[in-house]
């Protein structure tokens, strides 16, 4: 399927939805790994919005990115509860293991605050991480 056909399929599936922009952006981010300027233009056309309006929404939310990052991503929680359980001490080792190969991303809270430090890879979550477990996780993705 071409890029344009994929976009059209996403739009078609969500026509009739109230306030469809966020669902559309999630679908595009999932399908293409980013919401690039070409996709923004197509969305603007579909929803009868200006490109500035669409770009304003895309750039507001952390989940949408302008360019695809082909690297595997690990989200590491560094909010207060995980800080209280010592996540900051694990960060240098994790960063070293990640290098440029892995996208080690900070998130604020995965809701595993009683069992931190916690991390997430896709749909899988990990808790009670120590330096060894976190480095192993980084190396495994």
């Amino acid at each position: 399927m071409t890029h344009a056909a994929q976009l059209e399929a996403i739009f078609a599936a969500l026509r009739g939805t109230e306030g469809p922009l966020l669902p559309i952006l999630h679908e595009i981010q999932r399908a293409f790994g980013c919401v690039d300027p070409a996709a923004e233009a197509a969305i603007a056309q579909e929803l009868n919005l200006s490109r500035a309006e669409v770009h304003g929404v895309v750039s507001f939310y952390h989940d949408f990115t302008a360019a695809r990052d082909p690297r595997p991503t690990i989200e590491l929680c560094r909010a207060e509860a995980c800080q209280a359980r010592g996540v900051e001490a694990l960060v240098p080792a994790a960063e070293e293991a990640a290098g440029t190969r892995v996208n080690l991303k900070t998130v604020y809270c995965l809701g595993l605050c009683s069992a931190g430090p916690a991390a997430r890879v896709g749909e899988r979550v990990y808790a009670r991480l120590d330096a060894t477990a976190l480095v192993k996780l980084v190396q495994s993705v």
Partner: protein
Amino acid sequence: MTVVRISDDAAAQACGADEVAAAFAAAGATVERVSSWGMHWLEPLVEINGIGFGPASAADVEAILAGSCDKRIGLIAEHPFIARQQRLTFARAGKTRPLNLDDYAANGGWAGLIRARLLSPAALIGEVIQSGLRGRGGAGFPAGIKWQTVANAPGTQKYVVCNADEGDSGTFADRMLMEGDPFQLLEGMAIAAHAAGASRGYIYVRSEYPHAIAKLNAAIALAAQHLSPFEIEVRVGAGAYICGEETAMLNSIEGKRGEVRAKPPLPALAGLFGQPTVVNNVLTFAAIPHILLEGGASLYDSHGIARSKGTMPIQLAGNIKRGGLYETGFGITLGELIHDIGGGTASGRPVKAAQVGGPLGAYLGPDQFAIPFDYEAYAAADALIGHGGIVVFDDSANMAQLARFAMRFCAVESCGKCTPCRIGSTRGAELIDRICGSGSAGPDAVTALPQMHNTPGQPRSREDDLQLLEDLCETMKFGSLCALGGFTPYPVLSALKHWPEDFDR
């Protein structure tokens, strides 16, 4: 055949519950995946005939089945952590399979909705007001009054929106409820819809909760007949903390930037798509089915103290030995929660501070641990209950760094609409750096400009900087549009007031 019950809650999965469940299945046991009891330090918790074993690993399976495992904790229901609780909202926790309609109906499910639909909306709202239920999202506004406003507002299309954007660190009760008992949330929303005259509902869930999203979507499909004619749709957030603020959330559902709206108009009168909208937190809706049972409102009202009625699902998190979900009537003290129930810190070191109410909540020291858990008592101590999350820190915590983190967090997550929050947070972090001695000293490039002739001319002293930080916090507190900028001063000023030594250079 042995029936083994293991939770499929995300916290249990993160601790390895799937591997344990697979090992039991391989050993020939029948595995039932149930909701979590909320004893997270024991996850993965294995239950066989009411007896618990935890924290279990796949290596323990043989010993558990043979009856020789030393991780046995006895009857789960009689465990002190569970037996001392007053569970109304989490009454089914640990007992039912989250997506099993038979389990739900057999444990009191749908009874509140069936009774509510026999009542007139006015009578229904009267019972919610009588129960004393206040919004559990943090603001503590009486739920019944809000519903009444929506019911009386003119409008052909009204909405019920559930705020499940649980972004506060140290909170996970919404997540546990959505993953463990999703039908209860749907039932509560359907009751609200009947009261307010709404036909459509949305649940706005943060994207960091993929398990909860999957469970809710499945539950909505399974329960459609029970909910009809009310329709519910799940909307997924996109990583913006500010969308937990109700008006930012409404903008986000509408497909806009998650910027805060000025109030008035109240969402109850002009909310989603400009229509009258009930906006409540997950725990508020989840408390409703129980309240709507015969006599439920007065039973709910009999728990708690003063104007804080009913029960609160409190979340024990951070550096705590026995972390998890503890639902109890209002009035319990922080000392009881942290020491008697939580067992002190996980690291074994002395407790230095506890942050109550998420990233915007105050840090409380051990000398304040006798304050009862109550909206007004906390407000009087310049603190807040918020969503009921408690994050415990041991004596290795640096309160100045945590105060700086609060400012940085506000800067990162600010929606940018109002100036005190957008700019004040960045200036606040810089000020804390300067006070702690790591920031730049002396006049900067801007203050040295000729047009800045009103500046004092000499570098600010430490006392000047402290005064400036307090002034800045004052401005943020009273000048911000919403709680993000308005409450960030709580953690900052409480840290400065109780642990000034941490701010020394």
